[in-house]
């Protein structure tokens, strides 16, 4: 399903962000990506998202070499991945509703369907009364929940989340993890970067650990 083949990435100033990274994830797996700050977790995601390319090595997703994807196909590739960014990447000039609806808008879904689906999602993350607020007005945790709702609204076959509980209290964190677990049990492949040892150990899922760009556990 996802296959990293000896992937290298060096940034200016000789920062080896990824150093011979090789691993593979099967369809339907639930994987944690851990490692200290600066280990290369976000870089792994950026490559999977075709935001960055490798200096060496290949990455296959569903048997497609994603570095040889035609440029015009990238948007469609991305729609198959629900991504929760470490810094949320919410649109600050649209409401919570519009932010969560964005992936649906992009695919040209009918208004009625968008309304129904998005309102359901907003209820689910407990932001019922705040649909028309600007993300600016949300607390850190609420922003994160919004980002998660947006990433899952299209029911993508892959969900990747970069530190999705960094801003959440314990209760919310478990709530979100349970959401991911549920999606996973319906067949969604899930990959989550996290520092939270309690969560990663209690969830008892597969852990891929990076340290200074090297895979030390897989």
């Amino acid at each position, binding site marked *: 399903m996802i296959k990293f083949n000896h992937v290298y990435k060096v940034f200016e100033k000789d920062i080896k962000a990824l150093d011979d990274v090789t691993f593979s994830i099967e369809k339907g797996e639930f994987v944690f990506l851990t490692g200290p700050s600066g280990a290369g977790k976000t870089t792994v995601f950026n490559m999977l998202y075709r935001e960055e390319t490798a200096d060496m090595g290949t990455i296959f997703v569903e048997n497609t070499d994603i570095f040889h994807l035609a440029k*015009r196909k990238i*948007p469609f590739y*991305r729609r198959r991945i629900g991504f929760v*960014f470490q810094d949320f*990447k919410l*649109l600050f*000039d649209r409401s919570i509703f519009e932010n969560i609806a*964005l992936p649906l808008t*992009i695919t040209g879904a009918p208004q009625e369907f968008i309304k129904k689906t998005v309102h359901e999602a907003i209820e689910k993350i407990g932001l019922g009364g705040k649909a028309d607020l600007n993300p600016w007005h949300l607390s850190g945790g609420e922003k994160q929940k919004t980002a998660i709702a*947006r990433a899952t609204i299209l029911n993508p076959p892959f969900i990747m989340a970069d530190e999705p509980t960094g801003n959440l209290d314990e209760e919310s964190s478990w709530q979100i993890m349970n959401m991911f677990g549920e999606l996973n049990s319906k067949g969604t492949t899930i990959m989550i970067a996290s520092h939270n040892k309690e969560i990663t150990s209690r969830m008892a899922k597969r852990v891929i650990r990076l340290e200074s760009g090297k895979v030390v556990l897989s």
Partner: protein
Amino acid sequence: MRWLKEVFLNFRRSGFMSLISIGTIVLAVTALGGYYLINESIAYTVKRVQQKVEVVVFLHDGLEKEKIDNIITEAKTLPAVADIVFTSKEDAYTEFLKDPDIAGIMKTFDGNPLPDSINVKLKEYSKDNINKIVKFFDSKEGVEDIQYGGSEIDNLINIINVVKMIAGAAGIIFIVSALLVVSNIIKLTVYARRQDIYIFRMIGASESFIRMPFIAEGIVHGFIGGLIGWGLVYGVVTILITQVRKETGIDLAEFYLFSPDFFNIKFMLASIGTGTLLGFTGAIFAQGRLFR
């Protein structure tokens, strides 16, 4: 539909950016429209003045009627000649006497000091045509003098040409500037919304989905700008005509370009078209760089 909605959303989000964009197009359309009007009006005026240019041929006293008729008949075959009118010295005298001032002077002479003359109207004004006519009459026996108002007009035309050259250069500079400003304003809009665009792209929006609103924005701004620009020119010209009539008694409205007909349909469409084209082109120009 979505694009139009985006344009309005964007206007709400950053109204004053949209206002500059529209304002710039208004300026450009106003300037181009004004330039066009002035240019055409000058051309029209020059043509009207040129139509009045005649070559006047003065004949020797006592040239026989037959010879005169021969010259006139032959002159009429010249391609440059539109019409020929013969004025006998008696007719000229009678004409002169009608003006009391001149009549006084005329009376101090004994007899009629005026010569017979031939007035030649040109088909089309040009130095070449005048030269041909002058050459023709110069070769004829019995011609005393040939006069034409050409030299002053040529001077005027020279000056007008220089003015036109400057105005033309200014016009080109203006179109280029307008395009630059419009495209840069849209670039600024793009720039101000780079985070949005980045997020859109991250989420999997197609390039056309991302780009279309900006092009729609250019077109809408261009349309609005063109309309306002037309309104401005229309208003200024209307005020101008009224004021000029009041101040100098000259009726500018008789120059066909200032006629309401022209204004109401063709010029409005041209202004809106120019504005829309400017907006569209500006938006296209804005695309290249920031979307790499």
